[in-house]
């Protein structure tokens, strides 16, 4: 066996509870988590869309489903997921265009994404609640 194929044992540090992600890393993992969450709830959201457009009777069913406080809580979470995915997505598109790649700019835009998506969630959420 040649030396090139011998792998040096490298230290592994993957304790999830001890890793301190920088702000851009937090935005990135939340982008993934929010996307996965939205995907998992797609059948539920399509069901609501279906009921809301079926007939006046099914619209009433839709209304009664979304007036339940627990469903409202879930929809509130999904609203945040959508808005976070939306804001972070715009940031990633700008990064693709090489806008805001510097460390300071990337940190600032991450902060903006986190704050704007939360504020939008509150504004839209309160409007719909």
């Amino acid at each position: 066996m040649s030396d090139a194929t011998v792998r040096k044992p490298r230290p592994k540090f993957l304790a999830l509870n001890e890793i301190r992600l920088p702000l851009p890393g937090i935005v990135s993992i939340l982008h993934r988590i929010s996307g996965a969450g939205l995907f998992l709830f797609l059948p539920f959201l399509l069901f609501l869309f279906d009921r809301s457009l079926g007939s006046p009777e099914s619209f009433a069913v839709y209304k009664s489903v979304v007036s339940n406080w627990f469903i409202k809580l879930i929809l509130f979470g999904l609203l945040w997921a959508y808005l976070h995915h939306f804001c972070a997505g715009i940031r990633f598109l700008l990064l693709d265009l090489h806008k805001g790649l510097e460390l300071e700019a990337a940190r600032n835009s991450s902060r903006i994404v986190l704050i704007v998506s939360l504020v939008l969630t509150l504004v839209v959420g309160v409007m719909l609640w």
Partner: protein
Amino acid sequence: MVKRIVVGAHYGLRDWIGQRATAVYMAIYTVIFAFAALSLPEMSYEAWSGLFSGGLMRFLTFLFFLALFYHAWIGVRDIFMDYIKPTGVRLALHVVILFLLVGYAGWAAQILWRL
């Protein structure tokens, strides 16, 4: 920098572009939808179904769903590629996701064209 041809083989450029193109379309649609929904006089069945029964809005909404499902396919596939190591399990899950998303697309068409 490594010089290589990035199209033709499976370098993933098509999916990379597809993910971003669908993202841009969905972002634009989201803004259009938000304004259209805000301009509804009231949240009644007539007003809500009227929003989607126009030819243009119905088409744009269906396009949004198709973009969403293609976008979701690339995203979920990427997540599986990162976390699910056994090839057989991963490919089986890919098939399940594909079937699900094609089914969702049919469902979305049925919802919109029933109006």
